[in-house]
């Protein structure tokens, strides 16, 4: 059985599915990265993904264009994030509670909204046709390389975008004035204020970015991954994204690696649960357990680093 498992892990199809499963987590996790850099905790990612996923399908259906569907999902994501921001920054609602409120809207409010707009209950059924799915893309040269082509080529446009965004967001954070301001606000708001940076404005921008990215993740889920919206669709991916960001130390590349780890765990779950004599429920635990273990390992490494630093400081005395 273990042999079969190892064989199937190095199978090109399996690695392809890892990348596919990672994409939505990566979108949301990158959203969490930007928010965190500006010192904002956005735990509403889960709810934003749900609501954006729904509106992606609806906008796509109304305009009969997948592209406008995705754009609509992003706009809704930004609006929801700004809603959290408004209540957190202006009305002084605890930002974690604001996030939970949006998650509630995502859980039950979506079912209500779907009914309000279409009269359907629980899922969008036939609204998503083949033409309305996010299209896939074959990469010209890589496509013809055996094995590698099977793994890397033929993904949805948004999958490539997710991995491209890792680099783009790194550039924004570390190579642009905006990124400098974001980091300044996150690291020391008082210092940022003293040099004339509006903390609130930067935090609004950061949380809007995080909403847009979670919106992309939602659109990916409903308009490609599960080919339609249903109420149990996001299934904690927004929360897993938070964990991935924590484990990736809030850096874009680290976050991508930990997102891939969760993608792998989730793909493994799908693979193993198809095998005979394995409890699909116990296998379902894997991604969440991996998250906890990852967080623990990360926390230990931070602790050791701090200890070492103290030791060095003591030695210098």
């Amino acid at each position, binding site marked *: 059985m273990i042999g079969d498992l190892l064989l199937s892990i190095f199978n090109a199809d399996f690695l392809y599915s890892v990348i596919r499963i990672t994409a939505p987590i990566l979108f949301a996790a990158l959203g969490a990265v930007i928010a965190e850099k500006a010192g904002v905790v956005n*735990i509403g990612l889960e709810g934003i993904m749900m609501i954006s996923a729904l509106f992606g399908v609806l906008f796509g259906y109304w305009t009969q264009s997948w592209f406008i569907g995705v754009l609509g999902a992003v706009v809704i994501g930004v609006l929801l994030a700004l809603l959290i921001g408004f*209540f957190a920054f*202006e*009305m*002084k*609602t*605890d930002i*974690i*509670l*604001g996030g*939970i*409120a*949006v998650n*509630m*809207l995502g*859980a*039950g*409010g979506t*079912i*209500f909204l779907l*009914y*309000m707009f279409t009269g359907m*209950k629980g899922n969008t059924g036939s609204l998503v046709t083949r033409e309305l799915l996010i299209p896939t893309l074959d990469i010209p040269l890589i496509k013809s390389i055996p094995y590698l082509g099977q793994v890397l080529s033929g993904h949805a446009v948004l999958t490539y975008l997710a991995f491209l965004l890792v680099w783009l967001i790194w550039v924004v954070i570390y190579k642009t004035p905006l990124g400098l301001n974001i980091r300044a606000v996150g690291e020391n708001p008082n210092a940022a204020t003293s040099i004339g940076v509006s903390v609130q404005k930067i935090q609004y921008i950061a949380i809007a970015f995080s909403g847009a990215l979670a919106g992309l993740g939602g659109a990916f889920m409903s308009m490609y991954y599960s080919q339609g919206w249903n109420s149990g669709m996001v299934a*904690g991916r927004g*929360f*897993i994204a*938070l*964990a991935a960001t*924590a484990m990736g130390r809030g850096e874009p590349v680290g976050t991508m690696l930990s997102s891939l780890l969760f993608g792998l765990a989730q793909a493994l779950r799908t693979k193993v649960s198809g095998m005979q004599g394995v*409890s699909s*429920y*116990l296998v*379902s*635990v894997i991604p*969440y*357990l991996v*998250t*906890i273990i990852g*967080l*623990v390992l*990360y*926390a*230990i490494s*931070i*602790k050791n680093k701090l200890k070492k630093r103290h030791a060095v400081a003591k030695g210098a005395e």
Partner: protein
Amino acid sequence: MSDRRLLLFNLLRGLAAILLALLVAAIFIFISSDEPLTALKYLLVGPVVSFKATGNVFNTTSFLTVLAGMIPTIFSGLAVCVMFSANQFNLGGEGAIMLGGFVGALLGIYLKMNTGLHQVVCVLAGAIAGGLIMLIPAILKVKLGASEMVTSLMMNYVVMFVILHFLNFVFADRSKGATQTFPFLETAKIPEIVANGTKLTWGFVVALIFVVIIALFMYRTKWGYAIRMIGINQSFAQYSGMQVGTVIILSQVIGGMLSGMGGSIEVLGRFNSFLWRELPGYGWLGITIAILAKNNPIFVPFAAFFIAYLNKGCDLMATYSDVPSEMIDIIQAAIFLFFAAEQFLAKYRQRIVVRNAQRDLALQEAAASQGGSN
């Protein structure tokens, strides 16, 4: 006098937030429904009024089922009060409730005991299970600094899938169509206060007793004081010599125990066998309730009543009109945002504070000038 006016203001402010949330709900109902007035009628007064051709009468049975609906959420609300008071955003209530319910159920099926003692043992076991599971995020937070929010969220899913495994492969009653355990022994079931089918069990009384216990604990013991101090200013608590780590762990274990207790009482009181196939949702309701109660245990039953009432209203609305019962989530989200908003109506609060200060000043001056003339 001034304190009373501020208290009154806080009360009115809370009412305004709730009214605003209901207004949001009403707007959504008017947009989406073909029969908005029917829907609103069932939402707002349905839980306590039965509409008959001969006139509207108070519906006692329905009212009692609303009270029964408060049982698990009083416990989860108290749990969140304790945990959030220590400024720990532990969201693991869901998992602890499901686990407590499951452990209580298993002992209710396989343990043979006299009734009376049997229920106590089941519920205590549920509480211990809930407390133990909360130890994990608590210890990870205190010892390693891992975010209790993320670990507790992940724990919920782990707990759920592990329970589902045991429910499906170990303890399932194969003679039933749906996935469920064997029925509880009669000795383990928690009876209704009056046998009338409303499910208003003795668990309700236990819940109210725990409201008093937790209120005393939070405001009359040194541990409760430490929990609240850490929530207000952790550094201060640390410098003044409190065992911050221990108290944080304690607060979450108590939260877990209350959740687990609520889960087992709910399962043994409401059902004949364990049949939860997903997280029950009471943990999240507990957060709403704790916010409405401003983390004060004494207000928890009132908040729980309000939420149970709304829940029932939404169910009735979904049954008798075309509005889905998920409306409750929209109302809750709106309550969340406005109720927890410190700046909501803050201008008026400011005005009251200023007026009080001016009056106090005037009184002082008057007293001073009188003192001078003597």
